[in-house]
């Protein structure tokens, strides 16, 4: 199953106006891994994502998806392997109905009408959006749009899912729902996000970018404890790892020790706290 691997080697990219966006990025994401790419605005995350699907060609360095280096010849194959969910679902939904939109990819793959139909139904079911099938995309709510956008990509049955800010602009409930859906996926997943609590929950690896380079790469619990690193990259600990505003205990710490039931209602407010983040 080696086509589930994404490897980036010494990637450099400079925009035509001489803005240096990537300055030597290297990492390798393995099969089944869920990796988050985090960093401040302008750190180069989006530029990096555009390389994974061949929309931008590196100035120097290489991208490998599976066993192929990304070149003009392998581009169609790579785009089929890497499913990309854009930050703004409005960019991704362009057909008159949700059904047509989800069917767009499979039809381009040249599948038969029946096969297309089963794929559309399956992928909409995976994100809990079967009931939206006949609706036009512009009538959906933000959360629904996001889920449908993910379904359009799932219908192509990609091996690797790349998502740009999946939880941006969602209300807490829709965000919870989406996280639960993404948790179920067995794909190799790469996210960019500023929602570090989501990262903590979903990912087993965090790649920190700053000014076009990889500043750190490791398991989230380790990265998020390094306050000096986070500060230098304009980041903070996820809320669930920060002190409780009432008693300065963290959810994490409280989970580790048993709390006395009437210890100034810790249980209550932390339970609450946990729910909201």
């Amino acid at each position, binding site marked *: 199953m080696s086509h589930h691997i994404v490897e980036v080697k010494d990637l450099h990219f400079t925009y035509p106006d001489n803005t240096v966006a990537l300055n030597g990025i290297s990492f390798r994401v393995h099969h089944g891994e869920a990796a988050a790419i985090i960093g401040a605005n302008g750190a180069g995350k989006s530029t990096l994502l555009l390389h994974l699907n061949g929309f931008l060609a590196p100035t120097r360095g290489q991208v490998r998806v599976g066993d192929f280096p990304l070149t003009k010849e392998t581009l169609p194959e790579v785009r089929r392997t890497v499913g*990309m969910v854009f930050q*703004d679902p409005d960019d991704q939904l362009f057909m008159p109905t949700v059904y047509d939109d989800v069917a767009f990819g499979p039809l381009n793959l040249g599948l038969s009408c029946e096969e297309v139909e089963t794929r559309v139904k399956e992928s909409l079911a995976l994100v809990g959006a079967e009931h939206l099938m006949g609706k036009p995309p*512009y009538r959906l709510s933000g959360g629904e749009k996001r889920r449908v956008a993910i379904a359009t990509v799932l219908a192509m049955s990609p091996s690797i899912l790349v998502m740009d800010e999946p939880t941006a602009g969602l209300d807490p409930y829709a965000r919870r729902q989406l996280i639960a859906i993404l948790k179920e996926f067995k794909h190799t997943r790469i996210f960019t996000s500023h929602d570090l609590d989501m990262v903590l929950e979903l990912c087993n690896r965090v790649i920190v970018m700053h000014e076009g380079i990889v500043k750190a790469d490791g398991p989230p619990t380790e990265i998020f404890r390094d306050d000096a690193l986070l500060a230098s990259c304009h980041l903070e600990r996820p809320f669930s790892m920060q002190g409780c505003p009432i008693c300065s205990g963290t959810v994490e710490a409280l989970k580790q020790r048993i709390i006395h039931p009437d210890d100034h209602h810790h249980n209550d407010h932390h339970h609450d706290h946990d729910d909201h983040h």
Partner: protein
Amino acid sequence: MTSIEGALLDFKRLDRLATGDTALHRLDPRAKVLVTLVFIISVVSFGKYEISAMVPFFLFPVIIVSLGDLPVSYIVKKIALLSPFALIVGIFNPVFDRQILVQMGPIGISGGWVSFASIFLRAVLTVGVALIMVGVTGFSEGCNALERMGLPKAFVVQLLFLYRYIFVLTDEGARTARARELRTFGRKGMEMKAFASLVGNLLLRTWERAERVYRAMLCRGFNGEFHVRRSYSFGLKEIVFTFGWSFLFIFFRQVNVPWFLGSFFTELLR
């Protein structure tokens, strides 16, 4: 601004009407495109002062609307939205062409007014039928039919993108206009300078957005072809539909049916 956005949303409804499933919707789009072409050519080729002979042509849109289960008021509204263009084209005819053509008692109707009415009628017929045909066929399926009839693919894809990006452009435009409106504090009129930068800005933003939409399409394997959900074949139904209507249009074009009926009945009465 809401009115423009509303009109846009309403326009997208046409696309959804095309997902209906009547006998007309199931017809091969090629048959529908052909019939529409014959219809438009027949109507447009009438003489400058012709009015009465065009009346029977209304039979076609009426029948298609009822068979295709399209909402009448919606179609009428859309035609009304586009009719000012026809009015502008014909508005000067009554001024320049003052020769009296029809005498109704004391009132003389000049050739200008007759040709103006003729232009308007033509516009209503052709625009109406084009809208109705998109409503029972769908834009991408219509384009697909054009391609299968031999139109070069480059043109077809251009047409499809034009149609897709109209929505992108108007969306962006509506947002920009709203932002401007919020900061003009009810002052009417737009300064030329602000307008120029607004349009320039709009073009760039639309460009970027169009690029992102295009990327999303490429991501999902778009290779210059728009696929359609139904598979069609040009069978007996299509042949009957195409030739039946085409012959009827040509007949209406050659024989002025209302005039013929009128003279027939006046002959009877005598």
